[in-house]
């Protein structure tokens, strides 16, 4: 389609002709209203939207969790029916994993990758917008199930044959299938985009081994996504065909093997858990050096262990199937491979400690979260190792001991780390700090809350409490710890509220406080050399990178005794964001239009086919108009300058084609159409 785009794009030299290709939507102009947000292709705005949406779904998933906890507070809980409970824990898992923590990581990836590698935007800005809109339409789609007959009730891993029509006749599972397919397309597009960005858009001198560890971890994450998503896509398609078109993939009576689903799901699912944790590892690796006043210890080991984790993550999936009846040899092999994943992970933990060793630790909120995350992750990590022993896992699997494990790694390792990231980059993103006192209260309440909630689950699990049970009988010794866990979950909720209050208060207080400046933490990577909040064009001038921790080295040097001395103040070294005439990619409505069609297609397949036609038409129309829309928009007023930046292409799954060379690095005023 871009083939058609290209010549038209050439014609745009004559203004007005193709500006409104089909006369339907006016080409969006730069501005600050809602139009600007829905049509933006700016990686920073997209990042912020990911973040906000993710936090919204955190509350949704959290409320689901609270309902679960309320039901389980006492034996024979009567708050929820079994059916509703099953929907709640399924939707809790799905929401938290696919609609909260992955997009929150995507928020950081979108916002920070271009900044950390010294680029103006991602490789394909419009595709980036497309990813976001597809993801959000998938997210809304999944949650619309609550109003259309109930959510999926098959658990987040939705094992067949329970997920088939015979056993799950409602539409819940269809929502799961289509929702994950849609969200999967989004992640797929975005991960390809980010991989290309990292590989191709780095500032001069930004060798791969000078990239910040965060960028590295995000890169590994994107590779995991790009290779793992097709696998669950296959699984979801097979399930969809079974449910909608009576195929026989998961029908045991026809000789199908339910373990096929399990294999496909976990081949995706295990890399998925590293997709969850690696961004957080990256964030921690940025925060700890900054607040230790030391470079990260063993940079190359950090990078390679991240790669190793990503790589080994592909060879362990069947540890989720130790009791499923795969043969003893398979179990033994996977048991061993799982154990050794502790090695690269341990390297990371120990390197963080070594970074702190001899450092000057300043416990800002971000640092507290980072350090807390290390400790909590380790708890989850070592309980993970105890599951890796297949015989021991036959006792542990599907009990609350597992629930404890994964909430410690996900909440303790993942969420705490991401929260730390929020405190750390908040000034960069919004131009004001979050209040530190409130932040610290937030941290401690959250830490206590999570230990109260998930700590007891270890005990419950070992005492034999099964997962995914909507009630339990009195007399097994489960009562006390369940009550504690429930109380703990409300403590977490309280902590989350503190965070929101902090966000609000800090926003209100910001005007009366001194501006944080480009680099409030005396940090190390490139994003801190641009003003806060980041100007639309990121860098006035693309920096030429000479070392790892480039920004820090622009501030500090060594004297003859090899002691660190300041060579420039932040103000001297930083850019002031005053560049004009920088070409930025032009905004577009079409990604949104394309995305909106997708859930309609799915609704149609579930309810009435004509909706599919409408959705398909809308998506096709969006794609077509997208192709016709010139990449560049010579007329638009782009504030700082006008956009000129090859957008990649339009169509995610035919692999697309464009001929636009990407010119993200085009610096101020080197092309026509500027101000």
């Amino acid at each position, binding site marked *: 389609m871009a083939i058609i785009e*290209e010549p038209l*794009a050439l014609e745009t030299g004559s203004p007005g002709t193709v500006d409104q290709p089909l006369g339907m939507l006016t080409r969006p102009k730069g501005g600050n209203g809602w139009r600007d947000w829905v049509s933006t292709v700016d990686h920073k705005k997209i990042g912020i939207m990911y973040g906000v949406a993710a936090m919204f779904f955190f509350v949704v998933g959290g409320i689901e969790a609270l309902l679960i906890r309320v039901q389980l507070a006492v034996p024979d809980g009567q708050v929820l029916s079994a059916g509703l409970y099953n929907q709640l824990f399924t939707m809790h898992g799905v929401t938290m994993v696919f609609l909260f923590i992955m997009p929150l990581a995507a928020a950081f990836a979108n916002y920070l990758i271009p900044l950390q590698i010294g680029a103006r935007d991602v*490789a394909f800005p419009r595709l980036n917008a497309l990813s976001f809109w597809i993801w959000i339409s998938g997210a809304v789609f999944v949650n619309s199930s609550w109003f259309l007959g109930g959510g999926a009730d098959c658990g987040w891993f939705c094992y067949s044959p329970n997920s088939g029509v015979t056993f799950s006749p409602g539409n819940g599972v269809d929502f799961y299938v289509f929702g994950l397919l849609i969200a999967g397309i989004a992640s797929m597009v975005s991960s390809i985009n980010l991989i290309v960005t990292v590989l191709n858009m*780095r500032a001069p001198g930004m060798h791969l081994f000078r990239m910040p560890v965060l960028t590295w971890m995000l890169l590994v994450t994107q590779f995991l996504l790009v290779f793992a998503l097709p696998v669950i896509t296959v699984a979801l398609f097979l399930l969809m065909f079974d449910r909608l078109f009576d195929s026989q993939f998961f029908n045991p009576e026809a000789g199908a093997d339910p373990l*096929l689903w399990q294999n496909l799901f976990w081949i995706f699912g295990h890399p998925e858990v590293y997709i969850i944790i690696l961004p957080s590892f990256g964030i921690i690796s940025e925060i700890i050096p900054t607040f230790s006043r030391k470079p990260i210890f063993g940079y190359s080991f950090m990078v390679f262990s991240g790669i190793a984790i990503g790589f080994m993550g592909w060879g362990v999936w069947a540890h989720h199937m130790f009791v499923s009846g795969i043969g003893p040899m398979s179990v033994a092999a996977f048991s061993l491979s799982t154990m050794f994943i502790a090695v690269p992970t341990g390297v990371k933990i120990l390197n963080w400690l070594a970074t702190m060793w001899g450092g000057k630790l300043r416990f800002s909120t971000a640092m507290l979260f980072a350090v807390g995350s290390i400790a909590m992750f380790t708890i989850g990590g070592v309980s993970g190792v105890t599951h890796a022993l297949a015989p021991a896992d036959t006792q542990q699997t599907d009990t609350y001991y597992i629930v404890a494990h994964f909430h410690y790694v996900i909440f303790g390792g993942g969420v705490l780390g991401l929260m730390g990231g929020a405190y750390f980059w908040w000034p960069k993103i919004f131009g004001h700090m979050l209040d530190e006192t409130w932040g610290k209260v937030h941290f401690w309440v959250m830490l206590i809350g999570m230990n109260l909630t998930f700590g007891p689950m270890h005990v419950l699990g070992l005492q034999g409490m099964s997962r995914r049970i909507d009630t339990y009988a009195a007399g097994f010794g489960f009562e006390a710890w369940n009550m504690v866990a429930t109380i703990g979950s409300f403590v977490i909720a309280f902590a989350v509220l503190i965070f929101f209050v902090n966000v609000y208060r800090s926003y209100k207080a910001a005007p009366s406080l001194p501006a944080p400046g480009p680099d409030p933490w005396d940090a190390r990577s490139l994003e801190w050399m641009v003003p806060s909040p980041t100007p639309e064009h990121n860098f006035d001038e693309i920096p030429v990178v000479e070392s790892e921790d480039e920004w820090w080295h622009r501030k500090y040097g060594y004297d003859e005794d090899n002691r660190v001395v300041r060579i420039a103040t932040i103000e001297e070294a930083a850019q002031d964001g005053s560049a004009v005439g920088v070409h930025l990619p032009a905004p577009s409505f079409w990604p949104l239009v394309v995305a909106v069609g997708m859930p309609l297609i799915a609704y149609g397949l579930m309810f009435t086919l004509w909706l599919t036609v409408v959705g398909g038409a809308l998506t096709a129309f969006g794609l077509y108009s997208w192709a016709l829309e010139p990449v560049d928009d010579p007329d638009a007023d782009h504030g700082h300058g006008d956009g000129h930046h090859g957008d990649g292409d339009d169509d995610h799954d035919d692999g697309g084609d464009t*001929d636009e060379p990407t010119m993200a690095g085009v610096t101020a005023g080197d092309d026509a159409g500027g101000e």
Partner: protein
Amino acid sequence: MATATVDTALDTAHEDHGSSTGISNTKLAMWVFLGSECLLFGGLISTYLLYKTRRGPGPTNLAIPTDVFDIPFTSVSSFVLLMSSLTMVLALSALTRGDNAATRTWLLATATLGGVFIGGQVYEFTTFLREGVGFTSNPASSAFFTLTGFHGVHVSMGILMLMSLYVASVQGNLTPKNTETVEIVGLYWHFVDVVWIFIFTVIYLIPA
């Protein structure tokens, strides 16, 4: 508005830092995408391999795809698809030379060969259906139709892309500057072909 050919993009790459590796974003994206497609087709192929002899419930012995394979026929369509890869590279090569007429011919030839392949597949499917191997018959047949169907959809999308190229060429919009576009469509096309090379051997030729 700089719309450069591959070559100029490469030449300018380091001057304007457009790309740190000196390679095109889109092409890189395409290759990453193809890498991930390996896992997609791998999943479908493994599913089929796992199920290829599962005939369904009871002693009824429903027919499975391997019972009704027509190897000579499929060989011919495999050959057709394989040759479409040749015409595809010839199209690209013609475009690089600036030979528009030849480009068009080869593009059309590629799309036509692709079309013949799809036609063959439709024929194969209908024969199978007639012989009692339907999508819903048993795990083996479900897996077979899904795998080859996915492949067929890929081929069809390739044909769409080729036809768009052809139309662009007819309109005079396909010039040597666009070699990269054609190259990328070509990559996709060849990928679909190598997948079929795999399928032909592993699914059709290796006996059950």
